[in-house]
């Protein structure tokens, strides 16, 4: 992609993934967004920072993906004006991110939806938690959220949540329906907002990966790796090869664990309880293997800046290797069962459909994107070590329905099993942890293809080993709004199945 007409002079940030950073004005920001979108690129994240103690004013950051990697645009925002140009007309996924920037920092897009997104009333509308001078002791306020009303003959509303009937995260869904058909769905989130970004600023730089791992617990390895990658870029170091291979092993194991869980749950949501029993059995075996090899079922704290906390001895490696062929075989059997089950296929096929054109317009990414013809996978697009040595096969479908998302999960699980095999068989020798000099840079970026999609961590060091600002970004931000489109015309009773087929994070987007 050629940016010469914008006279951009991007600087390349040191680190494991290709990131270019450039300061822009409002007009250039909009121009580049349009150009990137037209050439098939994506919006990855949009967030703000309080810079009044340094350069003065605020900074809006917009992370775009083009062929060459991540393009990070920085727009200085005047402290008196507090507004920035809207980019949600180009990238619809920016809408909620822009609203969150207002809730947390008080910067407003010049046009677009002005309703709060993350703020429900736990802090007043004129207080902004991510400003550096925020003290945070105001009493909560009570506010009604103006949902969009659908009126007409026979239209009624079904409101669900934030406490749901199953074991899932909190969120609110407002359905407008006629009979059993969904006319419109409006999501409202922010219930799980715990102030993660503010919390980062109280942690030591060398410890932030622990909180990153808990942004969305199902993506602990992805987020903690992204955090470590950002920090290692700042410090100008590359972890030992053995550590990188172990990290990839952990990441692929996390992907497999989640896919196994989802494949079972999807069978169950379509009335096939045997699927849940079988897949949850396989997942339990998988987690117990984690326990034996890494000392934990969930790898929340396996990664540390500079490397990994765990290593594998020969016996543990053998144990992990031995578990691969039986699981591969079981998957084959279960895939045949799913494929041949007419009842299941009847529920899967055509449900919650997001055709490729719609996916592209809305910016659907990650696993769900690949099921709708959006061929992006960081392990292939900008393969960092060790993925540059693994030739990852990217899964993909064009149908964009529940069946396609199920098929992509099967394919990715099998590919991850292959990767685990290669990683274990060729694990390089050496240390698993390198030294970490003090950070030299001002901004580090970590970018990892988690099981749900690409997660991004933008990290700025403060004085004396502290964190000045950390923004973790989950792909659920982009994908949640797409579910509002995916359910239109489906029956209400199919919503749990459709929702599960995306399996997005509430905590990861509520922060």
């Amino acid at each position: 992609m050629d940016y010469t007409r914008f006279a951009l002079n991007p600087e390349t940030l040191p680190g494991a993934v290709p990131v270019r950073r450039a300061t822009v004005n409002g007009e250039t920001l909009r121009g580049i967004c349009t150009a990137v979108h037209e050439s098939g690129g994506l919006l990855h994240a949009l967030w703000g920072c309080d810079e009044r103690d340094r350069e003065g004013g605020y900074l809006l950051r917009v992370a775009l993906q083009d062929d060459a990697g991540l393009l990070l645009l920085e727009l200085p925002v005047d402290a008196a004006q507090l507004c920035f140009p809207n980019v949600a007309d180009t990238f619809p996924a920016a809408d909620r991110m822009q609203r969150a920037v207002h809730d947390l920092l008080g910067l407003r897009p010049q046009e677009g939806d002005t309703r709060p997104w993350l703020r429900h009333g736990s802090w007043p509308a004129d207080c902004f938690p991510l400003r550096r001078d925020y003290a945070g002791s105001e009493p909560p306020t009570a506010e009604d959220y103006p949902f969009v009303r659908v009126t007409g003959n026979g239209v009624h509303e079904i409101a669900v949540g934030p406490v749901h009937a199953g074991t899932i995260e909190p969120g609110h869904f407002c359905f407008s329906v006629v009979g059993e058909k969904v006319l419109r769905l409006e999501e409202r989130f922010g219930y799980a907002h715990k102030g993660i970004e503010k919390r980062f600023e109280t942690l030591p730089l060398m410890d932030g990966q622990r909180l990153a791992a808990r942004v969305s617990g199902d993506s602990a390895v992805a987020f903690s790796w992204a955090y470590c990658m950002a920090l290692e870029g700042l410090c100008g170091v590359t972890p030992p090869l053995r550590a990188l291979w172990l990290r990839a092993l952990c990441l692929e194991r996390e992907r497999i664990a989640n896919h196994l869980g989802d494949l079972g749950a999807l069978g169950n949501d379509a009335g096939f309880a045997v699927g849940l029993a079988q897949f949850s059995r396989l997942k339990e075996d998988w987690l117990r293997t984690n326990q034996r090899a890494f000392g934990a079922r969930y790898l929340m704290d396996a990664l540390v800046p500079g490397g990994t906390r765990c290593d594998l001895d020969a016996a543990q490696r053998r144990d992990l290797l031995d578990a691969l062929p039986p699981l591969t075989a079981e998957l084959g059997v279960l895939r045949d069962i799913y494929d041949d089950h007419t009842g299941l296929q009847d529920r899967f096929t055509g449900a919650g459909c997001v055709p490729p054109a719609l996916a592209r317009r809305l910016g659907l990414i990650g696993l769900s994107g690949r099921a709708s013809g959006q061929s992006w996978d960081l392990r292939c697009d900008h393969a960092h070590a060790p993925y540059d040595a693994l030739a990852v096969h990217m899964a993909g479908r064009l149908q964009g329905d529940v069946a396609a998302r199920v098929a992509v999960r099967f394919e990715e699980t099998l590919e991850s099993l292959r990767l685990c095999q290669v990683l274990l068989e060729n694990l390089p020798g050496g240390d698993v942890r390198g030294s970490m000099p003090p950070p030299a840079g001002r901004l580090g970026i970590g970018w990892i293809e988690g099981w749900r999609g690409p997660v991004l961590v933008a990290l700025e060091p403060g004085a004396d080993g502290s964190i000045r600002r950390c923004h973790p970004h989950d792909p659920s931000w982009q994908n949640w709004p797409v579910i509002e489109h995916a359910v239109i015309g489906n029956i209400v009773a199919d919503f749990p199945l459709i929702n599960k087929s995306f399996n997005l994070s509430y905590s990861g987007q509520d922060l």
Partner: protein
Amino acid sequence: MLRTLKQIARIGIISEPVSLTAAERGERDALQEKIRRIYGRALCIRHVDAGSCNGCELEIHALNNPYYNLEGYGIKFVASPRHADLLLVTGPVSRHMQDALRRTYEAVPEPKWVVALGDCGCNGGLFGCGYASAGAVSDVIPVDVTVPGCPPSPGAILSGILTLLNTPRAASVQESANQGQQPH
């Protein structure tokens, strides 16, 4: 269909024996008896995510897999607080979930119990207290038992739920149940 049946038959029953020693079996029988006395038939659990990272939820799901044979204990998860005896609460309580958690608690009929799950549920965990996080579950509703861990394993969750039945409160509820009174 045939393939499905073959798979079911091939895997067989994999539920792990709940207890092996006579003492443990005695304890389990006693617990089941308690559940029966206090709650009639089963201990019904309603899970509430009050702001967790979703890690604890994954282990609650695991507790329902065939290995743990949860229903064999007379324990099951239900869809409404009005059907529940016990609330299993995860997460630091986000301020945005405080009201919903309180209202869910109120909707559970007496006698009711609360188990706070995970380091976050016990004390706010890594998220602590802040402008958006109220911290521990016990700062918002009364808690009977806490189960630490990040996330706690299914085994730890199960024993946490079972310890509950050995708390002094459970004894007094059982007492009133024995006397045929309305327990409180």
